[in-house]
């Protein structure tokens, strides 16, 4: 219990102490030291929990609240799932802090940045170990604020400001679902403790309608946080943020929180067929369109962003066919290799000064370390055989296949399982294609840009090397039986492994053959072969344009109308009062014009009139 609290308190403390740092180097020591200490405590707390079925839980202080409403407590809970996520989040946060020291070496706002990253890490830990739904909500919302601040780190750039506002508004809109769901659950179960809620679900004490409502509301929150269709478009637009932040947001925190929420409340989702089907359909649509969008982007980080959206959809698909183990396993593996890929993208951006493919190419010679580690990441992403992505992705495909049996224990109807199976295989092919394309455009052929590239400094190189270890080995850990406590790991079906490897090899080969080199040895983008489909994909099906017409412009119109009503109607009365008073005072001021001669004239004329009247009346 103390350990769990420390995992939240230490990064929070590091963030507060960071406020006092005057020099840049002090802030760096506080941030990295805080993250390292957090990592040690997390490892001590989390490692014994892995593989344990029973959670440790407890709460601090007495309950807040009155007799009418369920009490709020600062309750924490540690089980195998939260332990696994804690380890991932603490590791990535530590590596990101180390990496950022070098990446933001010349940044004037580094101190604020390091402080917010620490706070971000504390909020993610709070979400992961929360047992009280409101503790979870606090961490959840703090993460939204921190992501807003970090995406908008380069606020001189308009795309960074817009991306930050978009991320905040879209996730904030979805968060309303979580708040309402918590209140409804509190009414239904008479407790805000997650343990109590899960017990009540297991005992069937919650009505069907309530279960479906709460599950759908939580799904809305998770869809917003994890950037799933139809709230998917904020994540790629969050790319103007610094690369280490993208690594943090895209792997271990923020987007992982959405998957974690659904995994944590999984019995609730399973209890409602509507919610399960909604979850599965969202996942199917998202994984296909996001992988297709990734195929046509011109920017390395944007490709990786769409790839994140697509991979998160895999996890949601696994949850909808009832396999928490496969989902969390893929979350961990994806967290490792996607953090690696984003940090590698940061190294590349550091070297060539841009994230556009147009400035890259041929970097394998100039940046051998980045090349080697990013190659592992790009191989793990589509799931090349011995790497982590292979095991976790095939666990999801296998789980979907198991759910297609009519007698499957899972909640998903068999048509949904077939749909997910098909979508997962198609997405695997698309993933192989865009990973091959991106890898080749960055590292293959000759240089397109003019700047001379250089290898990243040591502080940026070592996090890449460290992350390549779980990228390679994580797969072995997640097929370990019972690592998530109780639930069995998904058996790897041999036909899934063979067929997905065949698809992978075929697609990689095809993509490689489609890409040509011109007479200077520069790789021509294989995506040019997409022909007329490419601009459609690059525009991302015009979803943002539709949002612009359906949401942004009506909102702007309404705000203009509100402004006009306030300014031209309400304020008119206020201004009318002042104008009237001013006019009246102008009239009265006439009599008091400071000219003594006028006063005397009035006095004399008045006296004369009085005298004449007196004479007339006498």
């Amino acid at each position, binding site marked *: 219990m103390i350990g769990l609290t420390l995992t939240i308190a230490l990064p929070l403390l590091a963030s507060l102490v960071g406020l006092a740092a005057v020099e840049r180097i002090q802030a760096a020591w506080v941030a990295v030291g805080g993250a390292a200490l957090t990592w040690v405590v997390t490892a001590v707390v989390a490692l014994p929990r892995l593989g344990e079925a029973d959670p440790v839980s407890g709460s601090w202080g007495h309950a807040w609240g009155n007799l009418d409403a369920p009490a709020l407590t600062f309750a924490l809970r540690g089980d195998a799932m939260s332990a696994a996520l804690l380890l991932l989040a603490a590791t990535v946060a530590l590596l990101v802090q180390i990496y950022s020291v070098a990446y933001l070496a010349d940044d004037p706002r580094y101190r604020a940045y390091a402080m917010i990253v620490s706070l971000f890490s504390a909020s993610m830990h709070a979400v992961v170990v929360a047992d009280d739904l409101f503790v979870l909500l606090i961490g959840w919302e703090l993460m939204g604020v921190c992501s807003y601040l970090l995406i908008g780190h380069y606020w001189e750039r308009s795309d960074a400001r817009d991306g930050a506002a978009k991320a905040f508004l879209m996730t904030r809109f979805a968060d309303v679902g979580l708040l309402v769901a918590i209140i409804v659950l509190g009414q239904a179960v008479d407790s805000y403790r997650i343990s109590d809620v899960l017990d009540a679900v297991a005992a069937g004490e919650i009505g069907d309608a309530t279960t479906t409502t709460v599950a759908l509301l939580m799904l809305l929150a998770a869809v917003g946080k994890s950037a799933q269709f139809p709230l998917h478009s904020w994540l790629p637009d969050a790319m103007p943020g610094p690369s280490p932040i993208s690594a943090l947001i895209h792997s271990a925190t923020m987007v992982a929180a959405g998957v974690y929420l659904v995994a944590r409340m999984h019995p609730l989702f399973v209890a409602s067929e509507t919610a399960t089907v909604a979850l599965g359909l969202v996942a199917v649509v998202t994984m296909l369109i996001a992988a297709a969008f990734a195929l046509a982007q011109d920017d390395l980080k944007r490709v990786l962003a769409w790839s994140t959206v697509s991979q998160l959809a895999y996890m949601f698909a696994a949850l909808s066919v009832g396999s928490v183990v496969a989902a969390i396993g893929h979350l961990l593996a994806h967290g490792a290799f996607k953090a690696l890929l984003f940090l590698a993208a940061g190294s590349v951006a550091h070297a060539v000064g841009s994230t556009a493919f147009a400035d890259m190419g041929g970097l394998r010679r100039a940046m051998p370390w980045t090349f080697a580690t990013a190659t592992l990441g790009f191989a793990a992403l589509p799931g090349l055989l011995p790497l982590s992505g292979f095991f976790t992705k095939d666990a999801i495909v296998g789980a979907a296949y198991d759910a297609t049996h009519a007698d499957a224990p899972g909640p998903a109807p068999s048509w949904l399982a077939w749909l997910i199976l098909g979508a997962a295989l198609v997405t695997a092919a698309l993933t192989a294609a865009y990973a091959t394309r991106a890898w080749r455009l960055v590292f293959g052929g000759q240089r397109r840009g003019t700047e001379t590239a250089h290898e990243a400094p040591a502080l940026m190189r070592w996090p890449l090397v460290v992350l390549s270890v779980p990228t390679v080995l994580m797969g072995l850990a997640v097929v370990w039986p019972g690592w998530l406590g109780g639930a069995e790991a998904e058996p790897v079906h041999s036909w899934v492994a063979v067929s997905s490897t065949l698809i992978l090899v075929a697609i990689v080969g095809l993509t490689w053959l489609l890409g040509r080199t011109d007479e200077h040895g520069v790789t021509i983008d294989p995506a040019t072969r997409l022909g007329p489909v490419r601009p459609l994909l690059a525009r991302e099906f015009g979803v943002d344009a539709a949002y612009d017409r359906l949401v942004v412009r009506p909102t702007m119109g309404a705000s203009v109308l509100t402004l006009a009503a306030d300014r031209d109607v309400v304020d008119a009365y206020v201004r009318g009062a002042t104008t009237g008073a001013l006019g009246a005072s102008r009239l009265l001021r006439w009599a008091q014009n*400071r*000219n*003594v*001669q006028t006063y*005397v*004239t009035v006095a*004399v004329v008045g006296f004369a009139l009085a005298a004449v009247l007196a004479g007339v009346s006498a």
Partner: protein
Amino acid sequence: MPLLWPLLLSAALFGIGVYGVLARRNAVLALMGVELMLNAANLNLVAFDVWLRDVLVSGQVFTLFTIALAAAEIGLGLAIVLRLFRAYGHVDVDRVGGEPATVLGGVEAER
């Protein structure tokens, strides 16, 4: 001499004085208007004193007081006009009253 003549003269003087005070923009001329009004009052006092044949000659005594008073008044008034000129550079009563542009400069100059 009938009483009417000095009274007519006094009324004319007073009227001219009122006109001077009301219409003149030059401060010195306005002060002169005030003087005319005072002297019209003096003439009235003397004329009625003579007409009443007052044994105490209180009208003439009052006149002497008024003359002394007028001397003091014109001294004070001209001193004010002088300060006004130092501050504004002119003695136009219609144009005084704002923040004097050279009031500090004037004080400095005096020192």
